[in-house]
């Protein structure tokens, strides 16, 4: 097999077009490597060559998914691509999602082996685990780009194996995230012997590895609907990063671990108050000049009853809005924030929540 012909997918940020303001950039391509592809290309050496880089904005992919997938498949076919790489996406959720979707599509339409890389908590991992494509592999990375060199090195090593058509072993051997695919292997010991070995190991506190990991899927709890709007107190919650001027609770723009509630008592419009926007995941210029975009106070006031018990209106808006900057967070931290917020909301007698996320 000659040198592998690689197509590399990037989002607008890694393709060096721009940040959040370029998230609507349409699909485009250039010959050769771009951005981190250049370093990846040099690490690949003789095993493979990045002949083409395709890229588009995070929002563009989400809203034009079908067309983008078709177009990339067409390009891949025309350029006789033999390996597809996407990422590393770290914790960039929309980018990670795009990487997994494209890998899945190309694996099917062009039978390409695909490699992608992102943090294990990236939203893109969900699809990867559901699709279970035997020739699509996802390598775990750090949360942020400080792990770029390490990610690229491991990606290059993996591509080397893919290029030479070698057999890729299990997830634990090769370092990619498991997809839950069971492969049949020959072994010298019978099932009974292996089970007894495992039991003996377990009984004597020796390490053992289960052959079939049992995972339990969490069922999303669904709260009953609001039955009596006229008597209800509703609250606004936002993850857009709107905080009191001066950021008194010191939210971080990325990987924030705090939540707080800020008073809107007596305010009819967010612009009547003083706010800052702490969020590293999007361009906050609109939100800063009009925080009603993240905390829709001006219009929700219209649905607050002026006198007691008005039809079609709720009784009162809770005088605070809850805020927690939501970006680049690890799920255990977000869960803790959610649990604490939920406890406060419940103890305050709030009957329903309007949550605005970015």
């Amino acid at each position: 097999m000659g040198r592998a012909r690689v197509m590399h997918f990037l989002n607008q940020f890694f393709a060096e077009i721009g940040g959040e303001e370029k998230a609507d950039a349409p699909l485009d391509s250039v010959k050769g490597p771009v951005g981190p592809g250049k370093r990846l290309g040099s690490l690949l050496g003789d095993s493979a060559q990045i002949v083409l880089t395709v890229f588009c904005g995070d929002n563009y992919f989400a809203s034009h998914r079908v067309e983008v997938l078709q177009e990339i498949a067409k390009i891949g076919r025309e350029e006789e691509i033999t390996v597809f790489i996407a990422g590393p996406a770290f914790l960039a959720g929309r980018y990670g999602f795009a990487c997994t979707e494209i890998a899945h599509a190309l694996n099917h339409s062009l039978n390409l082996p695909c490699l992608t890389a992102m943090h294990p908590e990236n939203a893109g991992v969900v699809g990867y685990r559901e699709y279970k494509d035997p020739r699509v592999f996802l390598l775990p990375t750090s949360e942020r780009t400080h792990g770029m060199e390490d990610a690229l090195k491991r990606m290059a090593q993996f591509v080397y194996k893919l290029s030479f058509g070698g057999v890729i072993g299990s997830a634990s051997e090769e370092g990619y995230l498991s997809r839950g695919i069971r492969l049949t292997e020959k072994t010298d010991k019978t099932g009974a012997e292996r089970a007894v070995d495992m039991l003996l190991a377990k009984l004597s506190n020796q390490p053992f590895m289960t052959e079939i990991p049992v995972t339990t899927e969490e069922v999303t709890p669904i709260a009953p609907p609001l039955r009596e709007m006229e008597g209800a107190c509703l609250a606004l919650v936002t993850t857009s990063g709107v905080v009191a001027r001066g950021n008194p609770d010191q939210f971080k723009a990325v990987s924030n671990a705090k939540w707080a509630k800020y008073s809107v008592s007596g305010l009819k419009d967010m612009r009547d108050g003083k706010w800052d926007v702490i969020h590293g995941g999007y361009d906050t210029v609109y939100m800063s000049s009009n925080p009603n975009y993240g905390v829709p106070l001006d219009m929700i006031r219209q649905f607050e009853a002026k006198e007691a018990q008005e039809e079609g209106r709720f009784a009162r808006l809770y005088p605070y809005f809850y805020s927690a900057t939501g970006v680049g967070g690890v799920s255990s931290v977000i869960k803790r924030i959610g649990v604490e917020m939920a406890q406060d909301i419940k103890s305050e007698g709030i009957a329903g929540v309007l949550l605005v996320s970015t």
Partner: protein
Amino acid sequence: MIAKEIERAGIPVAAITPISLLSRQTGASRVVAGVKVPNPCGDPELPSESDRALRKELIICALEALQTDVKTPTIFTPKIVYTRG
């Protein structure tokens, strides 16, 4: 996600989510299709009155969603015009 924990405590949540993120697992059961990431509850390219009217439609939809019994995660689409992307 935060919405999931609030729902777990028995309080319904209407989650206004930018339209480009709807395919993500948010853990919310009542999802309202919002506008864009930088401005989920409005459109800065519209004149002020239209922007407020759009926000009002989102609220109406969210209040509807809160009062709707759902068995699985459900997307509610307000009567608004979405900016491209």
